Each structure stands twice: as structure tokens, then as C-alpha cells.
């Protein structure tokens, strides 16, 4: 647009990006790089810290436990989130906004406050225990167990399942279902053969995203789980502050980071765009 900018001056857009690149690069980029550098022996290009992870007898066990917990969380959120997302496509704009607000609630509120709430609920003689007692499930201990942690984590991760799902489901024309039923399909079969396959992109995106984020949880397992059943995040923390094994922590951290990035990139490709992950639209009405 300008006809008079001197040729040698770079486009002003780049200048505007300098503060952000400096801040993020310096405070986040440099430490992560240093962590990686340490993990390969600070220039020796050794893999011993990585191989140590796999031979110390603890890391692998914890990784497996974390993966299992994350898988359970993913399944729970899928089972709960799919109907919720489907409901969001059926209701009018006012109710939809309400539903969006509700699904984002665990998000906005402080992690501590939320986990404290779960602590109260799951504590001995807490609400959840008494609720289950109504159905005859006595002596169910939830506080300090993997099940309790799963329950708490699912609540927080539900938005990451619901929103990509809603995005995908919103694009499916419901008339297809009606068409299938008019052709003679019973409702469940119509759903399974027509509707669900069309939503597969959103399902995959949501599943990958939820699983990935679940693996990185720290506060919830720390507050609600038991120390004997630590997850990978807590292990990483211990390595750093208690064992002071900075190189090993660097290796573990880099490993977790790389796996996370790959999984998120994969989710991105399968249909959960960055827009869904990073910027969730709190839609409060249609644009006129």
C-alpha cells in the first residue's frame, strides 16, 4: 500500500513480531533447548540418558500406567462427550450457548479449586461414595485411587472432546439420518451406519487431543491420586527437584514433548484444527 518505503527496510510486520519471538524464545525456547541439550550429554551426542530411562525399571512402568489412565479417560470422555456434542447440535442458539458455557466451566476455574472440589467429593464419606452407596456399591474407595483420578481428569478434558466433536457433528446434515430411517433403518442402525462414520474426523481429533493432554496431567494425580501410583508428570517433577537428575529430566521431558507434538500434529491433520484447540469460540450468538 505504501509507495515510499525504502527497499532496505524489512516489512514492518516482522518488526512487530520481535517482542513475541524474543519473549517466548528466551523464556520458553531457550530452557527447552537447554533441557534437550543436557539430555544428549551437553554436546557429547550420547543417548545414555534416554536409554537410562528405559532401563531404570520405573519410567516404563509409569509410562504404561499413564498411558492406561489416559486411555480410560479418553474412553470416558468420548462416551460422555458424544451425546453432549450431539445435543449441542440439536438445540437452539440460546441453549447451545448455555451448554458451551457449562462445558468450558472446568476450564476457566482454577485447577486447584476444581481439584479441591473433587477431593471433597471423593473423600471418604464424601458425596460420590454415598451416591454409589445408594446403588449398593459399598466400600468403594475413590480418593487416592486411579479411578478417582480418572473421574476428575475426565471432567476437565471433556471440552477437548466435546468441541472438536461439535465442530464435526455440526457439519453433518441431520436429514441424512431421517433419510436412512425413511428407507427402513431402525434408529440405532441408522446412527451407526450413517451418522457415526461421518463424524469420524471429529472423533479421531477429539480422541487424540484428549489422550495427549491426559498424559501430561500433574496437579490432579498429585492431589487426588496416591504417591504410589504416580503418573509421568509427577515422575518428571521428582526427577527434577528431588533427584536433581537434570539430564535425565531433560531426556524424559524431551520425550514427552516430542510425543505430545507428534500427536497434536496428527490430531490437527485429522480435523481438529488449531482453531479448535487453541482458540475456542465462546459463541454467544450468530453474527448478523
Amino acid at each position, binding site marked *: *500500500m505504501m509507495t515510499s518505503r525504502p527497499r532496505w527496510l524489512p516489512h*514492518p510486520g516482522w518488526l512487530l513480531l520481535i517482542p513475541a519471538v524474543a519473549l517466548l524464545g528466551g523464556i520458553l525456547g531457550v530452557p527447552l533447548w537447554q533441557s534437550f541439550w543436557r539430555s544428549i550429554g551437553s554436546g557429547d551426542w550420547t543417548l545414555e540418558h534416554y536409554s537410562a530411562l528405559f532401563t531404570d525399571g520405573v519410567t516404563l512402568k509409569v509410562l504404561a500406567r499413564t498411558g492406561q489412565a489416559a486411555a480410560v479417560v479418553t474412553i470416558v470422555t468420548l462416551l460422555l462427550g458424544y451425546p453432549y456434542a450431539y445435543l449441542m447440535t440439536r438445540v437452539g442458539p440460546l441453549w447451545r450457548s448455555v451448554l458451551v458455557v457449562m*462445558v468450558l466451566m472446568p476450564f476457566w*476455574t482454577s485447577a486447584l479449586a476444581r481439584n*479441591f472440589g473433587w477431593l471433597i467429593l471423593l473423600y471418604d464419606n464424601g458425596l460420590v461414595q454415598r451416591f454409589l452407596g445408594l446403588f449398593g456399591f459399598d466400600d468403594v474407595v475413590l480418593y487416592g485411587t486411579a479411578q478417582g483420578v480418572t473421574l476428575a481428569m475426565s471432567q476437565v478434558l471433556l471440552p477437548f472432546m466435546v468441541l472438536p466433536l461439535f465442530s464435526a457433528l455440526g457439519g453433518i446434515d441431520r436429514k441424512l439420518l431421517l433419510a436412512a430411517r425413511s428407507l427402513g433403518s431402525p434408529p440405532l442402525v441408522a446412527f451407526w451406519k450413517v451418522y457415526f462414520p461421518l463424524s469420524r474426523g471429529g472423533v479421531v481429533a477429539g480422541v487424540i487431543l484428549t489422550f495427549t493432554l491426559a498424559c501430561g496431567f500433574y496437579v490432579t494425580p498429585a492431589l487426588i491420586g496416591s504417591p504410589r501410583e504416580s503418573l509421568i508428570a509427577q515422575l518428571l517433577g521428582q526427577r527434577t527437584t528431588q533427584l536433581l537428575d537434570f539430564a535425565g529430566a531433560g531426556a524424559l521431558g524431551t520425550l514427552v514433548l516430542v510425543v505430545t507434538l507428534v500427536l497434536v500434529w496428527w490430531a490437527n491433520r485429522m480435523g481438529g484444527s488449531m482453531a479448535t484447540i487453541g*482458540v475456542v*469460540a465462546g459463541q*454467544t450468538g450468530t453474527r448478523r
Partner: protein
Amino acid sequence: MTTLLEPSVAAPAPARTSFLTRWRARRSADPTPVWLTIVGTMVALYLVLPTLIVIPMSFSEASTFVFPPRGHSLWLYRNFFTNDRWLDSLRNSFIVASCAAAIATVVGTSAALGLHQLRGRRSARFLQSALMFPILTPSIVIATAVYISFLRWHLVGTLAGYVLAHAALATPFVLATVTSALGTFDPTYLRASASLGASPWRSFLTVTLPLISRGVATGAVLAFVTSFDEVVIALFIRSPRFQTLPVQMYNSVVVEIDPTIAASSSLIVVTVSLIFLVALLGSARRTSRPGSANNRRSVVRRTR
């Protein structure tokens, strides 16, 4: 005109119709199934209940975490506002969040404007993904790396360390909201303002900035709340002399049982919910009112 209908399938006589029939007739052709509404409601409760439960807890008399709370008392709130440790951590959180939000807002807005000007270039898209990267990284990985580096740079337990770390973490959120606001910004406006005699700087001040102000404000609030509630990094770069509120809350469960956390949690939940509800209603009302270039908000925060 002949019809194919025989008299036997003519419309039924409009005698007494049952309530159910009339109710079905009043609903739209494709109503939401009842079972779906029930399931949805239960899931909604699951989402909201654990957060809200802290509120009644905060009025408890007892010093344990047992629910339902016994008695009605404000002693937890009193403790929160008089105990030095709680007050100090609250004050620290406020200062850190304010500074971090201020920095993140300026840095994030600037970056969003820069990327907007460079849009379309592959290098710009790559940079945008790179700058959004902290949102997706597990906090623990960032926390441990930052902690170790901060040890060397003598930033552990300092205000500067907290502010810088939180500012870096919050910037992507501001970047996201402002980018969203710019997405609905018509570049023709800037041509119009230029043709009317406004220099590029004046155009920015009088046209661009007002139209993205909602995005910037939302980003600032988001940055503040992100920093205020941030717990994982805060746990690692703390020192006995400098802690933020979430760290104090964490201690009150793990280190020594202190039910004041109920009061603290309750205050946070109510305050933050109010802020976001106000922002929601404000942008809902503005949608019908002219003047906003954006009515999308980003409401993602760190969760762990």
C-alpha cells in the same frame, strides 16, 4: 379432481385428542429426544458440580474436608484475609498476574498485528504455529525446563521470574484473541482511512485499534486469569519467600491440611465465573449493536 385416497383413510374425526397427541403436535417436526436431554443434563451436572461444591464447603465450621460441611461460619474467610501466608500469596498473585497480563497483551497484540500484515506467507504461518505452541505443551515439561534454566539465571523465587514465565505463557492466548478479531477486520478500512488523509499510524489509532479493542481486552483478561491460576510452573519456580496463591492452596492440601483453601477456591470460582459471564453478556449485547469487528472469544486456558 379425483384423489387416490379412499374415504376410509380420510382425516380422523377431531374428537377428544389426548394430551400427548397435542403435545407432540405442538413440538417441531424434529424435536430433541428426551433421553438425549436427560443425558446432556447429567453430563452438564458432572461438568459443573465439582467446581461449585467448594462454595458451600467454604462456610464450614470444621477443619477437615468432610462434606456436607458442619455448621455455618465465616471463619475460613476471615482466616484467608488475615493470615499472613494467605495474604502474601494473594498479593503476589495479583502483582504477578497484572504485570504478566500487561506484558502479554502488548506483546501478543503486536505479534497478531505483525502476522496479520504478513498473512499468506508460509513463514508467517509457521511462526504463528510456533507462537501458539505453549498452549499445547504439557505444563510439566515447560515447568521443569524453565526451573532448571531459571536456577542458572537466578530467577527462581523472584517477581521477575514469575512475571516473565507467566507473560510468555499468556502471550499465545492474547495472540489468539486478537488474531480472531483481526480475522473479521476488512482491510479496505485502511485504504479508506488513507484516502481520507490518515497516515498509517493515525489509521492504526483511529480505525484498527478501536475495532480490535474487544479482542485485546478479552486477551488481557484471559492473560490475567491464566497467570493468576497457573499452578504447575508456579510450584517449580517458587521459593519459601515468594509464592503465589495457587501454590499456597496446593500446600494446604498436600503439606498441611488447611481448610482455608475452601474459602480461597470459592472466591476464585465466583470471581472468575462472574468475569467471564460479564464478558459473555457484554459481547452478546454488542453483537446486535454496531461497532464490534469481532464477537468471538477464546476461552481456553491451561487446565493442569
